[in-house]
């Protein structure tokens, strides 16, 4: 059997970091900040969680430190894009680049190794029913984010800030405050995603170990139209593609084919969803004017 519970389990494991990061990205999108620094924030989380876990012996302190460090790192985007009105795209690209350089630099200065830091005594996250607690947290976050965005005053104001900042400001809502909050929360979530990647699925840090997952999360935000449940479905798609890739490798396909699978699947899904959306707008009466 190709599709069995094992495949679903590994898909769920693969989707956790993507989902956490993408939820952060979705929140930013709703607040009107385009955040493509997810990859870099995740990578900072990976390194901080491993370093902290190593020095304190506690994976949980590692998780906490990762969340704090990635939130601090996300301030670059908040200050740069919101306060100084810089270019969010360029900032995000620079943040991703900075994270790769900084974590590789720290890997060598702190641990004196190049490439990968891997030690048997490094504390990883415990598994509960085959998943780390962070995986359960990710699903809880989907529900919380969905309710917050659609029901709470805070969520409605956040969306208002993203859709009509001037109107929000006129009503006495400070757009900057909400944007900062969204970016910082995305930092926390990316930190958790990084911790999951480095202390959950495996227990090690290697250079550039996010390997494009942050970008996949950006795409998941687009695919899911920045709605928590939509993002969940998009992340599930990616998780399935990654898990199916591993399975195919077992059947004898070269590793390169399976490496590429998640990106190809994501791209195809993006085509289909945008094509469908376009057709719908073309058919709707309002579509004629756009």
């Amino acid at each position: 059997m190709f599709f069995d519970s094992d495949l679903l389990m590994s898909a769920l494991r693969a989707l956790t970091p993507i989902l956490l990061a993408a939820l952060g990205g979705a929140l930013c999108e709703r607040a009107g900040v385009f955040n493509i620094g997810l990859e870099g924030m995740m990578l900072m989380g990976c390194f901080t969680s491993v370093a902290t876990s190593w020095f304190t012996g506690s994976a949980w302190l590692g998780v906490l430190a990762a969340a704090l460090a990635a939130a601090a790192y996300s301030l670059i985007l908040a200050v740069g894009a919101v306060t100084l009105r810089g270019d969010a795209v360029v900032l995000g690209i620079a943040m991703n680049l900075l994270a790769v350089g900084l974590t590789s630099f720290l890997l060598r200065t702190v641990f004196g190794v190049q490439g990968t830091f891997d030690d048997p005594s490094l504390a990883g996250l415990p598994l509960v029913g085959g998943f780390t607690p962070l995986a359960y947290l990710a699903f809880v976050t989907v529900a919380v984010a969905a309710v917050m965005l659609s029901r709470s005053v805070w969520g409605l104001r956040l969306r208002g800030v993203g859709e009509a900042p001037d109107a929000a400001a006129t009503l006495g809502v400070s757009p900057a405050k909400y944007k900062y909050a969204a970016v910082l929360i995305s930092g926390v979530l990316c930190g958790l995603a990084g911790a999951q990647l480095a202390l959950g699925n495996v227990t090690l840090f290697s250079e550039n170990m996010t390997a494009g997952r942050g970008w996949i999360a950006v795409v998941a935000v687009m695919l899911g139209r920045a709605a928590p449940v939509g993002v969940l479905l998009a992340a599930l798609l990616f998780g399935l593609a990654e898990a199916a890739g591993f399975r195919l490798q077992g059947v004898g396909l070269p590793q390169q084919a399976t490496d590429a699978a998640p990106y190809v699947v994501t791209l195809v899904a993006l085509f289909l969803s945008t094509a469908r959306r376009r057709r719908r707008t073309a058919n709707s009466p309002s579509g004629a004017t756009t």
Partner: protein
Amino acid sequence: MTHTQIPRISGVLRSPVTFSVLAGLVIGALFLVGTGADPITAYGAVLTGSLGADGIGSTLSTGTSVLGVALALAIPLRAGLINLGGDGQMVLGGITAAVTGLYSPLPAPLTVVLALLAGMAAGAAYAALAALCENRLGVPLLVSSLLLSYPAVSLASYLARYPLKEPGSSLPQTRAMPDGVALPAFGDSTVTIGLVLVVLAAAAYWFTDKRTAFGYEIRMTGLNSRFAAYAGVERRGLTLKLMSVSGALAGLVGAIGVLSFPYRFVDGSLTAPGYTWTGLTAALLAAAAPLGTVVASFFFAVLAVGGLAMERTTEVPRELTQVLQAIVIVFLAARLRFPSGWFRRRPRKSSQESPQEIGAA
């Protein structure tokens, strides 16, 4: 700075580029002090290691790739289009050039030309595919170019490791090019005619940008795409053309890499040095202006090669230079629109407006 007694100096200081580079160097110095190294010794080692007799050849051959990719990414960036698929386009160019070089029945000099052209065509076609994804399917270029890059890199890696692998070698590389299928090198250095090709490309870009109507359309689109559209610039066509040129240049860099030492396609040799990101950084630093892109590329090639020398002298990891690059761009991006009153800036003529529009799309 209250009066403009020394207007030229204050003018230079006000330039966000100068500010960002200086701020990057200062923060880099703090890092160096933090690791117990002397910043002056370290920066000195960067300069002597990259510009000294031993390093200049290496700087120029690294610079060939960095400038090539930087130009490739600068040309669409001038119109506000960000091509993140440099890795894929470059690698496809490289592997296509390798196949052409290995199997072409033509005499060696013609094979070299054919391999260069084939590499450019492959890169151009792949970049055009990303443009079509935006034009026809509505996937933002930023995303389509990046996502397309991964399967291309995987494909080239597969080809170099299995069907085209050098028999008996333990390395993931193709066979060496036949005798004579190589770009002529200057003396016994690793600097090849490829540098001349890339500089010619830069000159062509400069000419197009400054002197032609097409260059004006590109800049106008970068400054204000809605106005440009109103004035009759057809955005889809422009995207397709610019991406094709961009991909052709990235493919050229890949082909040059294969036709220079070690005269074969080695898996990872084009992607591992991070030319795409360094090139994009250079293009962003220069706001995609032709001459600025050349200067910024040289600056980053110096950093990359000098970083190795710094590592030998001070034992500070060379990754510091990558940190420096990124910090420069962070400052530059954040300073783009400082609150008025901090510095009075001259109105700038560059493509800074546009990337945000891509972000919004």
